[in-house]
């Protein structure tokens, strides 16, 4: 599969560089027209997706760059959520769904039959539209559960990881005095940050966010956006959003999708100021959608 991908990598103009002594972790890189070379964290190639007989994605090609925020915008039903759910193999959990194409994580095709989807989801976490803290668990347990269910029992390690994750999610100061209160008792914004902390607690590399702020008020939204800026230092983030201002604020790259096709994918500044495609321009200026 990797050989096959190499072919595709060559075709798309990117080159594969191997570092000496690191045969497994060869990075996929992408060369910008300007000559700048950037490491690619995830690469979608010819991604198609179906729900039953209905095709939702039509051969999407997309490079997600390491430690950058990639925003996916588009009208409702354009396939943005489907695409983001393909990145951690959540798409296949829907009964009757099918997938075609390849998605690379570092250099590994996550759709290779040998790859365990559960292992993929540990590296590629996801935050959903509605905050989904586990209702029976305390704040502490909500964060610790990912590790616990994957076999970590040591109390000290758990304590450390919980604190670290909550700090990273900018929630620690607000909850440190009541770690054993119910997670469902927090406000919506806090719950969403709790869910982010929960994803960070496992060995996360890429964070997928499926409209993380659409159920939140403006203040909670701005907190999440600040958090995204913080997290970008260490993680690669893909965010689906309905809110174009939000995409412009938080992302370095923006993808515009329409009817299951990727219409335009470029630097955020370029997409919002000088889009190449007429459709993108129409959408951004509010002429449809």
């Amino acid at each position, binding site marked *: 599969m990797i050989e096959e991908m190499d072919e595709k990598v060559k075709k798309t103009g990117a080159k594969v560089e191997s570092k000496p002594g690191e045969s497994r972790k060869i990075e996929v890189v992408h060369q910008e027209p300007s000559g700048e070379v950037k490491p690619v964290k995830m690469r979608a190639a010819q991604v198609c997706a179906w729900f039953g007989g209905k095709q939702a994605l039509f051969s999407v090609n997309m490079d997600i760059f390491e430690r950058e925020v990639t925003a996916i915008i588009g009208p409702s039903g354009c396939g943005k959520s489907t695409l983001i759910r393909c990145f951690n193999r959540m798409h296949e959990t829907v009964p009757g769904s099918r997938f075609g194409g390849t998605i690379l994580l570092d250099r590994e095709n996550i759709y290779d039959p040998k790859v365990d989807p*559960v292992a993929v989801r540990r590296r590629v*976490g*996801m935050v959903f539209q509605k905050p*989904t803290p*586990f*209702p029976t668990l305390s704040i502490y347990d909500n964060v610790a*559960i990912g590790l616990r269910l994957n076999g970590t029992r040591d109390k000290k390690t758990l304590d450390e990881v919980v604190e670290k994750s909550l700090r990273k999610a900018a929630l620690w100061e607000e909850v440190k005095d009541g770690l054993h209160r119910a997670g469902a008792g927090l406000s919506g914004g806090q719950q969403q940050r709790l869910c982010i902390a929960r994803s960070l607690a*496992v060995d996360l590399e890429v964070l997928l966010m499926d409209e993380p702020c659409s159920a939140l008020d403006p203040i909670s939204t701005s907190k999440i956006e600040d958090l995204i800026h913080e997290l970008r230092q260490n993680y690669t983030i893909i965010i689906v959003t309905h809110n174009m201002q939000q995409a412009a604020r938080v992302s370095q790259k923006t993808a515009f999708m329409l009817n299951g096709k990727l219409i335009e994918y470029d630097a955020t500044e370029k997409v919002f100021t000088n889009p190449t495609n007429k459709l993108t321009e129409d959408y951004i200026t509010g002429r449809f959608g």
Partner: protein
Amino acid sequence: MMFDYQARRHFVDRMMVFLCGAAAFIALVPLGSLLWFVILQGIKRMGTPGILVAITVSLVLLALPYMIYKYLKHLPYLAYPLAFLAGLWVLGLLGQLWKVASQIDWKDMGFFIHTPTPVGVPGGGMGNAILGTLTLVAIASCVGLPIGILAGVYLSEFGKKGKFAWAVRFTADVLSGVPSIVTGIVAYTLIVKPMHHFSAVAGGVALGFMMIPITTRTTEELVKMVPHSIREASWALGVPQWKTILLIVIRTAKNGILTGVLLSIARIAGETAPLLFTAFNNQFWPTGINQPTASLTVQVFTYAISPFEDWHDQAWTGALVLLLLVLAVNMAAKLLFKNPRQLLR
């Protein structure tokens, strides 16, 4: 014109409320009188717990006039006379109750710790039958609960639409409506006949059979109530499917499942028919689950059809103990179920 319509609508509305309220009150009469009879007849032989029951019932009765007053406070012309009448009635009932209760030997626990005595010998009890009922319920739970709960999880998590799931669901629905004596015959044929004697195991298995459909269906419904987003959240954390179900989904639904379990226990604890020819009866303390075992229900049945006054009294007391047992289990279930939304907390 406007006023007319309003007045008429108001009148019709009042009438309907009154009709429904009256029907509800009439529905209360048979239930209330059943409870009253069992309590009145049962506390005689009950000893210490009998006094406690009498005190509790008295307190509830004393609160009745006040409750009537409170509910009808906005209708003073109805509330005062009704509360007054209720007060008189309650006094009458209390007199009746304490006339019986005053005969109780309040230090006597014999009914709960003694085995039955031959006719004419005083001081017999149903200790072995109470223990037997608990044993039977325990065996039934061991048989019925694991199967029922896991089957319910299967139906809601894996077999949503399959033909197999449909068959299981249909069978469970039919089985939960089957007369319990049929279950008894089946257990008799399957267990008593090959073993050549009655036993607690046979009775427990018969009751366990009855628990399976109830727990299967309640578990299915409650596991279905767990929002899909919680499962997805768990998968997205890299938690395998089986751990998600066991540790997230079942844990989220656990209060509800526990309620279903308690209700199914309350349902089978009062069964007589399937025990008549499986666990049978026993005059002595049980020596093992392989022996015929007394149970409250069968003992009540045996005593009630006997011609002896003393045994009749004991049958009433047995019935009251059974009733309190079921009441306790139901109360526990209600406490767990207090707020349906809490089921998912």
